[in-house]
């Protein structure tokens, strides 16, 4: 297959995935997926379970062979390399620490299995382990066994073990999946710093949109084995390519509407259609907190407030719009005075996204 070599300078350690397909029996896990990651980029593979994101990660690691397609890293044909020659640091969802080895032995594993000619001396290995333990802030735990560590500590050991081989690329499978919410948020920041310091291209799999948007340089959204959208967190959040992406990236309110001559009509409310909106019957999506409230004689969708509930800084407003119950949100001070239970108001979606219906 003829493969155009990309510009050398800024793609030195770039990852190029082209037309990857993989089926397990009759179940297609990946369908013609193509995407790229730049050198030192932090790329998130985001999708619901069964979207093929983990399969794609395992293809990159060499743990699965795709049925079709190409993977190149720094211009090299990655699929021709065996797992052990790829030098990717992989962190498994459940960490896969060697249960019969101590923390230090786990971290040193990748160095001790090298060919004799490439194997560092015992003292070099010990130094490297000590450095890595410091990096992941686990000094003093080197003699513990994995079963004696907390989830967060295990995850950091798994990271240190992956980093020990000085990987060309880091692959993380749901790195926070098995941790509780508090630890998760702390580790997220820390992981991002670690990535920036280590300076390796990182691909991580997650089903948590908040995590992906918060951490990644770019997000690839997968569904049913297909790549739906690839872009920066801002791009994908502000301009979701499909209703699925809109829905998946956050809470969504949806309504039916019509676009005619550049005007969007929902029920009895009409406004300028967003740029690039398709003509004809459409589905309109908006975020429950991106709405403006107006008095009943103003412009907007007629709505009846059914309930208002304060939850910390947020206010949940249950409305009935066009006969359908919707849950809107407002954040503290922005709640317009006068929005109370039983009141009729007008609601204006501030930034509706419009997709062709059907």
């Amino acid at each position, binding site marked *: 297959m003829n493969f155009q070599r990309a510009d050398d300078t800024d793609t030195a350690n770039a990852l190029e995935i082209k037309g990857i397909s993989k089926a397990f029996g009759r179940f297609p896990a990946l369908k013609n997926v193509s995407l790229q990651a730049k050198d030192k980029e932090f790329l998130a593979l985001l999708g619901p379970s069964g979207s093929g994101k983990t399969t794609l990660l395992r293809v990159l*690691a*060499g*743990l699965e062979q795709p049925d079709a397609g190409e993977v190149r890293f720094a211009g090299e044909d990655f699929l021709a390399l065996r*797992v*052990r*020659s*790829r*030098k*990717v*640091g*992989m962190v*498994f969802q*459940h960490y*896969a*620490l*060697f*249960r*019969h080895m101590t923390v230090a032995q786990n971290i040193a*594993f*990748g160095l001790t*299995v*090298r060919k004799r000619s490439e194997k560092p001396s015992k003292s070099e290995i010990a130094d490297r382990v000590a450095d890595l333990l410091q990096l992941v802030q686990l000094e003093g735990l080197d003699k513990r066994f994995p079963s004696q560590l907390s989830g967060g500590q295990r995850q950091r050991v798994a990271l240190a*073990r*992956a980093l*020990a*081989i000085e990987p060309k690329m880091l692959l993380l499978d749901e790195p926070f999946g098995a941790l509780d919410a508090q630890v998760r948020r702390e580790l997220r920041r820390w992981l991002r710093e670690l990535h920036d310091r280590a300076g390796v291209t990182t691909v991580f799999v997650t089903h948590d949109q908040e995590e992906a948007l918060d951490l990644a340089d770019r997000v690839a959204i997968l569904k049913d084995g297909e790549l739906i959208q690839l872009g920066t967190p801002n791009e994908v959040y502000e301009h979701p390519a499909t209703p699925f992406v809109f829905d998946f990236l956050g809470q969504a309110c949806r309504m039916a509407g019509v676009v005619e001559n550049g005007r969007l009509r929902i029920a009895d409310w009409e406004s300028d259609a967003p740029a690039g909106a398709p003509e004809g019957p459409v589905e309109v999506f908006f975020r429950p907190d991106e709405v403006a409230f107006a008095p009943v004689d103003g412009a907007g969708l007629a709505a009846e407030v059914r309930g208002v509930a304060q939850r910390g800084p947020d206010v949940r407003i249950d409305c009935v719009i066009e006969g359908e119950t919707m849950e809107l949100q407002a954040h503290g001070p922005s709640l317009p005075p006068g929005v109370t239970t039983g009141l009729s108001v007008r609601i204006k979606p501030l930034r509706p996204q419009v997709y062709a219906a059907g």
Partner: protein
Amino acid sequence: MNPTVRLPGLAPLFLALTLLVLGVLIVFPLGVVFQQAFAKGFAAYLEPLTQPDALAAIRLTLTVAAISVPLNAVFGVAAAWSIARFEFKGKSLLVTFIDLPFSMSPVVSGLVWVLLFGAQGWFGEWLLDHDIKIIFATSGLVLATTLVTLPFVARELIPLMQDQGADEEAAALTLGAGGWTTFWRVTLPNIKWALLYGVLLCNARAMGEFGAVSVVSGSVRGLTTTLPLHVEVLYNDYEFVGAFAAASVLAGLGLVTLVLKTILEWRHSGELSASRRH
């Protein structure tokens, strides 16, 4: 781990029944074996065990076990690894076949070798022409024993390896380890106690097997009698003290196995398959 519950109503009755059955069927007969063996004193007990035929039987038993147990250990690891790690057509059929020796009468396990390698068997003539003896010889005993004990190791390892999953091995590969290194440094250490457990049970059965070996043995005294067959030969010859002495060796072997098995279950319960955990 299991919560202790006060035994309700009928339970003491069931408990008593269990103890009674255990006592009558296991403890009492076992006591009789040792009582009979030592009936005429310690010297009389040792005497039949030092007879050339008895020593030959012990040696043969050890030889057969020393060959068939390692064979089964290798087979068990290989079978468990392929079943726990790979998806392939006919997998459940393979699992069923591994269990077959458990559900089949040991006599059949012996008889198949006679049908294949006996003088009237499929390969009988060819073997005769080439002067190879399988039936009524050590190799026949090994074959029969190996077949009977085939499931022991594999059955211990399959659930454990399925439970542990392949992630650790995959991690080792991504860290640069080759297949053999991964096997010796990751796979084997993770299953070592379960493997030992399986080998222990396999060994106990290999040394104690009667039915299958009796078919292929021909019971030539001092040549093809293993310890269990030796017991029968002596018993049929009305040499009761000798028979019970030999039997006590087998019973002692069983008790040692039981102790080792209990130690394993107690010390390494986390590394045995779930069904063995306490």
